[in-house]
């Protein structure tokens, strides 16, 4: 009699435990359905369209950085008091003083030159023109050598840095200037 009473007494607890198990399963199933319904994708993510007229990267270089790069690109700390003036059409006008020690004597003279930046076949091209060093012909002849090949050196250095930074498949689209900045627009042509 006592045993039958205990059994009847335990039955609701057994049903409760069973219900609890069912509840856990139901809730887990509902959560899985919720995840599947909202996260499973029968439609793949749309492919990213590549617009060849639009740059992937825009590099804006301030005149202060250009000045720093020019001073750094001439070995021997030869350029002093450099000022940089940016002009329309990718032109950079540079003025300053050039110093060189020859046979123990330091020659110093003012200089001015113009650099033109342009995009050519996907690369940045630097042309140096209008190089003027000193008024004195002898001093000018002695110091002119510092600027020889500067355009090619600058082109090579800038393109090497661009290739290191952007990768070899970077294509320079165009170069523009305003009074404070040089703006280079490029895109990647890789797969």
């Amino acid at each position, binding site marked *: 009699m006592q045993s039958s009473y205990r059994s009847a007494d335990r039955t609701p607890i057994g049903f409760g435990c*069973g219900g609890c198990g069912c509840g856990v399963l139901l809730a887990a199933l509902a*959560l899985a359905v919720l995840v599947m319904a*909202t996260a499973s994708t029968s439609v793949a993510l749309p492919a990213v369209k590549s617009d060849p007229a639009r740059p992937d990267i825009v590099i804006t270089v301030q005149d202060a950085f250009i000045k720093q790069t020019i001073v750094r690109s001439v070995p021997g700390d030869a350029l002093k008091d450099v000022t940089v003036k940016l002009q329309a059409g990718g032109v950079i006008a540079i003025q300053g003083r050039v110093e060189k020690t020859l046979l123990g004597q330091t020659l110093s003279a003012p200089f001015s030159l113009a650099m033109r930046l342009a995009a050519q076949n996907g690369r940045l091209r630097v042309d140096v023109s209008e190089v003027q060093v000193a008024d004195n012909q002898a001093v000018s002849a002695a110091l002119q050598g510092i600027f020889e090949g500067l355009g090619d050196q600058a082109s090579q250095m800038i393109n090497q840095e661009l290739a290191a930074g952007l990768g070899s498949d970077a294509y320079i689209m165009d170069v523009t200037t305003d009074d404070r900045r040089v703006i280079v627009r490029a895109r990647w042509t890789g797969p």
Partner: protein
Amino acid sequence: MNVNRWLGLLIGLLAGMFLCCAGTAVILSLGGTSSSVPALSVVPSNATLDVAIDEAYLSRTLAQNAKGFPSPWPVLGGRMNIEPGNQATFDVLVDGLLGRMTVAGRLTFGVAQGRLLIHIAEVKLGAIPVTGLMNMFVPGLETQIVEKANQQLQERTAGAGVTLLGVTTDEQFLRFYFTGQ
């Protein structure tokens, strides 16, 4: 049938469902964030060089390099959407436990001591937020992403001799600000 049995079953059912939901909620909220949230950076006044990267390129890169992307599940593809406020949202297609699923989330960007910081602010599996869960089960994912991004940044800027000062975003571009060393 005894009413007590039905009542027991009902109470058990409700308790089970509550337990499951509460347990899931606790697991989802556990784990917290693994690193501090990067402070919102503004355009640094002493920046002399800035590099703006288009979101379309970032999406292409994500799609092309999906296989090598650090993730608990294999990434099959994805896209990024740059948004103002130093943040970007992403959707990636992963080969997860329940089949192919879309994981969406939000990243925030910052710079500290010349290093780029990327914080995984939010990750959602469908409608379920799983940021805490991800931090608990994949600890160090954020650190891994930050290290990889900084390594690439270091490799790409080493020749130019520049230091990273800040990062900002607008509707389309992720902008990095540098100064010459």
